């Protein structure tokens, strides 16, 4: 469960997130959308405890300020928009980094940490890649490795910043299907940001649109993805069609 009340973030003097309220229930998938620079990533970073904010944030019912760094890392796992790929690091070592909050500062990993890594590698179909260097993986495989590290943290809350930005349409669906499956199997609460509106609407239970740091619309995909809302906040010319699971957003060219 994520509870956000009146959260604002200032970066270098600019108000990037402005009084956001948001509740993500346990097991729910909520996606934050909005034009470039709307404050989506910054909101996620605030919830992950990676940037200073004002307001209140609860994770799993506890105020985030009362959690130690390690407790926080066991409660919430973040996949950054473009995670760093350390040169020469193998997939198994990368996924093992996810166990950092369980390993004593001067200690080494235990059998249970290794078991957790093995379990995650199997769940994400990465066993055959365990010995490969991360930089040799394709985009889709890499995204699975990023997810695997986050899952190895054993956190019930998953924050995904543009998890599909670098992927083709097939791999986008593959990764999002995977997240959806894991959400069910591990009762994860997922908060993501996304740019592709149609695909975002297909997977999210609810959506939140940010513009200039403020929440402008929140609700089901059907309520958020309307021609009026999109043309106002994205300044885009779109048609919204009724799809099988949710609305489909089609960009259209300006009539000459």
């Amino acid at each position, binding site marked *: 469960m994520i509870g956000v009340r009146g959260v604002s973030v200032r970066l270098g003097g600019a108000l990037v997130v402005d009084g956001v309220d948001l509740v993500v229930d346990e097991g729910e998938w909520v996606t934050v959308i909005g034009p470039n620079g709307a404050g989506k990533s910054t909101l996620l970073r605030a919830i*992950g405890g*990676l940037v200073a904010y004002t307001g209140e944030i609860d994770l799993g019912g506890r105020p985030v300020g009362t959690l130690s*760094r390690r407790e926080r890392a066991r409660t919430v796992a973040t996949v950054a928009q473009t995670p*760093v790929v350390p040169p*020469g*690091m193998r997939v198994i070592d990368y996924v093992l980094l996810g166990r*950092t909050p369980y390993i004593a500062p*001067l200690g080494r990993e235990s059998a249970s940490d290794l078991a957790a890594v093995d379990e995650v590698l199997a769940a994400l179909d990465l066993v055959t890649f365990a010995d490969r260097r991360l930089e040799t993986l394709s985009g889709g495989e890499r995204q699975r490795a990023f997810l695997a590290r986050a899952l190895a*943290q054993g956190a019930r809350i998953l924050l995904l910043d543009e998890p599909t930005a670098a992927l083709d349409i097939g791999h986008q669906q593959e990764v999002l299907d995977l997240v959806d499956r894991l959400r069910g199997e591990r009762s994860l609460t997922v908060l993501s940001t996304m740019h592709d509106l149609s695909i975002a609407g297909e997977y999210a239970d609810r959506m939140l649109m940010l513009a200039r740091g403020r929440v402008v619309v929140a609700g089901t995909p059907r309520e958020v993805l309307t021609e009026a809302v999109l043309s106002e906040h994205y300044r885009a010319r779109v048609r919204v069609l009724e799809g099988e699971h949710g609305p489909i957003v089609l960009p259209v060219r300006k009539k000459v």
Partner: protein
Amino acid sequence: MTPAPRPAGLRLGWLIGGLVAVAVALVAGVAFGPVTLPPGSVAAELLNLIPGVRLDSGLSDREIAIITELRLPRVVLGLLVGAMLAMAGAAYQGVFRNPLADPHLLGVAAGAGLGVTAVIASRTTDGGDATADLPIGVPPAAFLGALIAVALTWTLGAAGGRERTPATLILAGVAVSAFLAAAQTYLMQQHVETLRQVYSWLLGRLATAGWHDVLLILPYAVITGLIVLSRRRELDVLTVGDEEAASLGLHPQRSRYLLLVAASLGTAAAVSVSGLIGFVGIIVPHTLRLLSGASYRSLLPLSILFGAAFLALTDVVARTVAGEAEVPIGVVTAFFGAPFFILVLRASRTVAP
């Protein structure tokens, strides 16, 4: 079915290899010199230093005295200095996430050198005896100089903002080095009477070392080694950058500062007794990265072992290659290190850590 891969760590084979390398360097370092002693006898005599061991090496008392009073302290000092420089290089590379980082290229060694010069120059009364023992205040002064230098380099290197590349930090290090070297030259000019002692130290020396120098830096080496080795896992976490490291529950700045201070202390200890011996912190860790993997969990302990062996063997080369005359060891490491650095520079343009 292939066995499941194990996570990175110090493999037994590599650990044994490192220990063997140190043993070989130790025996070779003691055996070779103006009077060459048979390595087998030297090994027996070294084992005799272990309490309870009594082997007959067949060496005369005079030869045994050469071993324990002249050659052994020099070789042990070489091992310690090599271990500190290689370990500091690997740690700096991790802390800065920069493959080009090295105690000398960051200006840390120059800072330590300025500290040492200040202490030696301030002792004007003894007439600048080049073989005088180093004052006990040398390592702390070197440490202070090293910390100031690394702080300057870091601050200047960060001035590039988002445009920062691995080379930016090194350029800052070069500027800091030049500045500190100028300050050092000025200091030497003001205290000409100690010039000879400073020079003999400056060029990189293990030559005048006796047990005094070993004992002078041993405590610093032990403390530094323990700090850095105990934090080697954190250096692996830091490879994903500060923000992701923080999301994994680490306090990245705190880890960074601690490791930076420890690596600078190790550098200062090495520079205090041996002067300016460059490139060890580049050559050893990068060779090990290629051979044994990039994880700092194996890289740091192996850098200590192979760095030690590397410098002790380099010293053998330095004092035998030119016959009677001894080549300064810093000249030998630079001769191999500079071309090696170019290779690392080329590789780092494609893969930055």
